[in-house]
């Protein structure tokens, strides 16, 4: 299965732009995982951690984010966060 295109952007810079297996995003109504082929979806974020799974079953990398949006579209997952730190 194709990898998911994942982008994490803050007003200061483009933090990540990568092909990954799965990302778990802290949505305002609960965390959700996004893999390639996810249905179009848009939500605001709550403060919390993104978990980025580079490969299936691998150890997740966590990135703290606060405020912002996540959009899942044909192009993949775009997280627009107010701030982000690894």
């Amino acid at each position: 299965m194709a990898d998911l295109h994942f982008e994490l952007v803050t007003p200061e810079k483009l933090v990540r732009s990568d092909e990954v297996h799965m990302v778990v995003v802290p949505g305002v109504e609960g965390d959700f995982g996004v893999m390639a082929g996810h249905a179009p979806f848009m939500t605001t974020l709550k403060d919390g951690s993104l978990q980025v799974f580079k490969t299936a079953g691998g150890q997740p990398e966590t990135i703290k984010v606060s405020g912002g949006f996540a959009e899942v579209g044909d192009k993949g997952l775009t997280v627009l966060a107010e701030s982000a730190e690894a």
Partner: protein
Amino acid sequence: MASLKALKLRIGSVKSTQKITKAMKMVAAAKLRRAQQNAEAGRPYATRLSEVVSSLASRVTVGPQSPKLIAGTGKDETHLIVLATGDRGLAGAFNTNIVRAARKKAEELQAQGKTVLFYIVGRKGRPVIARSFPKSIIADHDTSGMKSPAYADAQAIADDITDRFLSGQFDVAHLAYSEFKSVLAQEPQVDQIIPVVPAPAAANNKGSTASAAVEYEPDEEAILADLLPRNVAIQIYRALLENAAGFYGSQMTAMDNATRNAGDMINRLSIQYNRQRQAAITTELVEIISGAEAL
């Protein structure tokens, strides 16, 4: 013909001018690097956000209860031009170009019978606009105090503009600034920021199969209510960053030219000075020799 002394003074003054322009060029170059990094780092967010907003705008069915920032006021009478320029001069045609682009837009709009208002950000735009479009400036925001554009400033400007929009002072807002292409090229831009411009039809059609099923959490309205004001702030922030980078780029180029011109001028004046000095010596010699011969 200027006297030797006058020439010498002139050379001295051009030399000190050259020192100043050289120093300004150096300072601009140092600040440019910083500003350029900031501008380039800020771009992805602004472009992504405006992509998201405009794709959202093209999907959402505009109803009477949808947010005004997306639906507009339903009128197209009064246009606001947010004019973002630098605070200082000595940067070549940088400020002039932005102002010219804004004026062109304003004249176009006036030709269509619209009312045009101005919101001035930065010091250099005000005098020209006040002269050519008297009484059209509704507010101005002084940015001369800050060293580099901060998001908080952009936020404050955006809030002010949004409030004025919601209270019905204008129907459409444009943002005039200078896009930083490279150190040598800055391109003045006039973009519409309020209401949001929906994504072009082509992109819309392509995404239409997927867009039918987009899910929103918590819901469309809540997301839009949060997203739209932020979009305005981010677009302004981006304009400020691009302006800062463009300003220093332009200033660096202008000061480089000035330094070079000063160098040329010093060369020309020195040649003139030396010729005159030689002429004076020759005359003196001729006088002495002919005096000796007469004895």
